[in-house]
């Protein structure tokens, strides 16, 4: 039987339509022949089709619309007294003779509309009569449509201000009264639908009811369209009456829809001026009503209103909109114990959005909202509802977006407390949002306090959180996160050295907790940040002489030393080595010999103890040599020790070519091309010769091992070194020696015909061209 439900309904609808068409046909005939009696008879019969109980609202609407169209024709006929010869007053009685109530009332409304138009009776009297008489239809569906018809035909005949139906006796109050009453009755009918029929069809009924809701809401729309409903009347009459009905009907579907309707159809300024009343109704609604959406929409509307023009902002202040909304939300959350977290948070997000738009200057409000949210969240330790989490992220992102400035958010004491309630993953996402915001806006975080708060906020990125499953971490994400933190460290800056030092210490405190995986990312930033401070201090040195300066380079270097040590313990020796060298260089610039020496020691120790990989060793030794070469702070003794070490390690590299290259690089340690730089030509030559020996040995080894001596690249490289030092005026390097080297190369090349190497050939060729060129120029090379 249920299966055929839809089919049957189609059939019933078809029958209904046929009935309407049939009677409409005879009605038209009667209209054409000006036969009032027949017209009434057939129109009543036609309208009887609307008495059916078999149709769903959707189908019934179809039927209704057909009857509606026919009634328009009847109305035109009624208007023309010349055609039917009966005064409208009599007509008004005549149609009431119909025995069935539904056709009778449809006809009555139709004549009533003509009656008002004729102005033979005050509009209010007719309207009042119609809306009263319609009580006779208590069937929800039929009643709703009948009253909807009444609303439709009376819409343009309300005694509104400025309307032609306004008169001494008819005031806008009557219009309002009429619409309100019709609205009330319609809502009652609508609500009653829910309680009729068997319980198992509840869902279907709700769906059907939803289809009908606009019939009810239309009344509110009409109210909002009445010119005469000014703020005063809205406040005193319309809103209280509507809300009374909404609250009293105790139906969640209706309450939700109507609240939303009120918010949508009436102007924003009315809402603003009646906030208290409107919000006062919220806690009185059924617990199942989705108040959060209602309130959210209200706040969204008000926010938009506030954003629309700066002129309206004083209004918001005047009515204390924030306090009222905040209060209402609190009450609603309190009243609806079962409201899920996501609901409450959504509310707070809306309130926050509202606050940010309306009171951008009131950070305390923002904090208040966050605080309220914390309070709500404190009942649940961690959010596991993804929608709720999303809302929290929205809540936290809103201030960042608004102020474009994390510094503002950092002053919000409740901000980190809200973040605490996020799960680890989301917490990180949020931390990233914060960092990105800082980056995007190039915000400088310039006090220790703020840095502290900031690190508290992003602690999810800074260290492992308890219980976090490390395996789950995506390597890629982790890198991104840590790179972001590294970038962030550069944004923490204060021009005041003292404060800056504090910042650095704070950052250190936090980053050091990050564990082996994070330190390689964060420490370089920290080190360079510290080095920047050192250079700054160094630049200022002249100005602050004699003062007791807490932030001295020495102190900072001590700090750096520890940092690097920590890093090397991680272990991340290569990075530690590089940073040590950086620090050494900085110490050099500060003229701090011991410090620099210390850093070099550290670097060498790292090299010896931690760096085992031969490739890494090559890189490291070149770095050491390069740095050492630029050092000018060392005394002879220290310098000797270090260069000795460097050359020693160079010669002990694993591969011969590496040895060779490192050794000839060491030659630069003895020839610094500065005014005061060391220029020890003899030792340069020693290095180069040693390099040559190694190159030879390499060549021989290659011969033994592979049967060919390989390219002459090493020799060409050494030749270039010879040329360099020759040009720099090293007396130990003679033209003859160069000449000899060139010959050596040529001999080697001839021996090594097996494997022509284009790269080394080209290198040699260009070197030779260079020599040629210099000769022609007649410079020092000329000889």
């Amino acid at each position, binding site marked *: 039987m249920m299966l055929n439900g839809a089919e049957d309904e189609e059939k019933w609808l078809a029958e209904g339509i046929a009935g309407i068409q049939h009677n409409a046909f005879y009605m038209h005939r009667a209209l054409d022949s000006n036969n009032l009696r027949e017209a009434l008879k057939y129109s009543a019969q036609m309208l009887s089709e609307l008495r059916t109980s078999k149709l769903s609202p959707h189908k019934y609407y179809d039927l209704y619309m057909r009857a509606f169209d026919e009634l328009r024709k009847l109305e035109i006929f009624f208007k023309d007294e010349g055609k039917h010869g009966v005064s409208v007053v009599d007509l008004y009685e005549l149609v009431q*003779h119909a*025995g069935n109530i539904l056709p009778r009332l449809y006809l009555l409304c139709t004549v009533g509309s003509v009656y008002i138009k004729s102005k033979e009776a005050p509009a209010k009297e007719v309207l009042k009569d119609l809306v009263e*008489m319609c009580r006779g239809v208590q*069937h*929800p569906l039929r009643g709703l449509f009948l009253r909807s018809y009444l609303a439709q035909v009376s819409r343009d005949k309300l005694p509104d201000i400025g309307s032609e139906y306004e008169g001494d006796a008819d005031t806008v109050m009557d219009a309002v009264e009429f619409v309100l009453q019709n609205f009330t009755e319609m809502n009652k009918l609508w609500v009653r639908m829910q309680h009729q029929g068997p319980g198992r069809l509840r869902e279907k009924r709700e769906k059907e009811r939803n289809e009908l809701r606009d019939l009810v809401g239309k009344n509110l729309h009409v109210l909002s369209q009445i010119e005469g409903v000014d703020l005063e009347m809205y406040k005193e009459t319309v809103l209280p009456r509507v809300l009374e009905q909404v609250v009293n009907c105790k139906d969640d579907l209706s309450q939700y829809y109507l609240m939303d309707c009120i918010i949508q159809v009436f102007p924003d300024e009315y809402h603003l001026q009646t906030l208290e009343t409107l919000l006062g109704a919220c806690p009185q609604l059924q617990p199942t009503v989705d108040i959060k959406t209602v309130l959210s929409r209200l706040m969204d509307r008000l926010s938009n209103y506030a954003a629309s023009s700066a002129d309206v902002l004083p209004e918001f202040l005047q009515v204390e909109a924030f306090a009222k909304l905040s209060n209402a939300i609190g009450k609603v959350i309190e009243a609806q114990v079962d409201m899920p977290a996501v609901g409450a948070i959504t509310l707070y997000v809306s309130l926050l959005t509202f606050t940010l738009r309306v009171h951008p200057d009131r950070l305390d409000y923002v904090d208040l909202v966050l605080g309220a949210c914390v309070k709500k969240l404190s009942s649940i330790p961690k959010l596991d509802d993804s929608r709720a989490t999303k809302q929290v992220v929205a809540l936290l992102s809103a201030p960042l977006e608004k102020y474009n400035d994390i510094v503002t958010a950092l002053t919000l004491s409740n901000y980190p407390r809200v973040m605490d309630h996020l799960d680890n993953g989301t917490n990180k996402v949020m931390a990233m949002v914060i960092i990105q915001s800082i980056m995007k806006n190039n915000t400088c975080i310039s006090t220790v306090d703020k840095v502290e708060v900031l690190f508290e906020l992003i602690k999810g990125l800074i260290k492992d959180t308890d219980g976090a499953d490390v395996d789950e971490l995506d390597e890629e994400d982790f890198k991104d996160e840590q790179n972001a933190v590294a970038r962030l460290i550069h944004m923490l800056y204060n021009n005041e050295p003292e404060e800056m030092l504090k910042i650095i210490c704070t950052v250190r405190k936090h980053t050091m907790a990050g564990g082996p995986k994070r330190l390689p990312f964060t420490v370089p930033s920290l080190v360079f940040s510290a080095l920047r401070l050192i250079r700054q201090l160094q630049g200022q040195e002249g100005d602050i002489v004699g003062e007791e300066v807490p932030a001295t380079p020495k102190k900072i270097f001590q700090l750096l030393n520890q940092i690097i040590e920590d890093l090397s313990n991680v272990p991340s020796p290569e990075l530690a080595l590089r940073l040590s060298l950086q620090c050494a260089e900085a110490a050099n610039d500060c003229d701090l010999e011991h410090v620099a020496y210390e850093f070099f020691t550290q670097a060498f120790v790292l090299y010896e103890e931690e760096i085992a990989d031969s490739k890494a060793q090559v890189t490291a030794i070149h770095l050491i040599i390069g740095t050492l070469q630029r050092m000018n702070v060392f005394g002879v003794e220290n310098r000797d020790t270090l260069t000795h070490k460097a050359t020693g390690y160079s010669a002990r590299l694993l591969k011969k070519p590496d040895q060779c290259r490192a050794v000839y690089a060491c030659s630069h340690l003895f020839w610094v091309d500065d005014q005061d730089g060391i220029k020890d030509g003899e030792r340069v030559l020693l290095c180069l010769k040693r390099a040559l020996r190694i190159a030879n040995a390499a060549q021989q080894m290659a011969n033994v091992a592979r049967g060919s001596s390989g390219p002459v690249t090493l020799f060409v490289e050494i030749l270039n070194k010879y040329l360099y030092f020759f040009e720099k005026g090293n007396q130990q390097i003679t033209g003859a020696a160069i000449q000899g080297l060139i010959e050596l190369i040529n001999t080697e090349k001839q021996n090594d015909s097996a494997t022509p190497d284009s790269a080394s050939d080209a290198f040699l060729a260009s070197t030779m061209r260079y020599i040629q060129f210099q000769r022609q120029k007649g410079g020092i090379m000329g000889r």
Partner: protein
Amino acid sequence: MVALFQSQENIVGEVVIEPIQGKKVEHNGVKIELLGQIELYFDRGNFYDFTSLVRELDVPGELYERKTYPFEFSTVEMPYESYNGVNVRLRYILKVTISRNYVSNIVEYQDFVVRNYTPPPSINNSIKMEVGIEDCLHIEFEYSKSKYHLKDVIIGKIYFLLVRIKLKNMELEIRRRESTGSGPNTYVETETLAKFELMDGAPVRGESIPIRLFLSPYELTPTYRNINNKFCVKYYLNLVLVDEEDRRYFKQQEITVYRLLET
């Protein structure tokens, strides 16, 4: 078309007798009677004349040509209205009799109608009542008046105090109760003259449903309390509530109908 009179009127007219051309009519006298008769159908053939007035129009003689007799019944007392019911008829007749010897009398009848008007009653209380079925249905209804003239409107309302049954609709019926005869030979006939739907669907507690019923479309007569001890006609408003199983709950109230003297 029939002539219409009311009580205390003078019934004036003339009787014209015209014999067939060239013939004469011999008679023992001509008279005209005004009769008020009650005819009970179950007692066929029995007429009760409650009024009988006679005017002699002519002494015995012969008529040769058309002759006109004026007549007049002055301020005739006609207390009852003409009525045509299910079991009873009340009629007024003018009866002209030309009495003759040896052959049957020539008799002609002319009906006329009597309607009597009454001024609006000085006391006209509303009908107000609370009725119900315990724990099922309690209603309170009110009709604004207990006495209505024929073109009147019944105004009222029904207030639902308690509704525990699923109502389908509600109607107001106008019923006419005509009882004839007396004692064991009383015949009662009830007709429903109007079925007027007041409500469609099921109300809930607290609803009040308006009543507005125009009497003019229905063919009512005034209430006749006791017409010459022969019959009476009474009117009732019957409020009927029908539930979804088509059970009917009703309450009947008598109303008085009168013919309003228009002033």
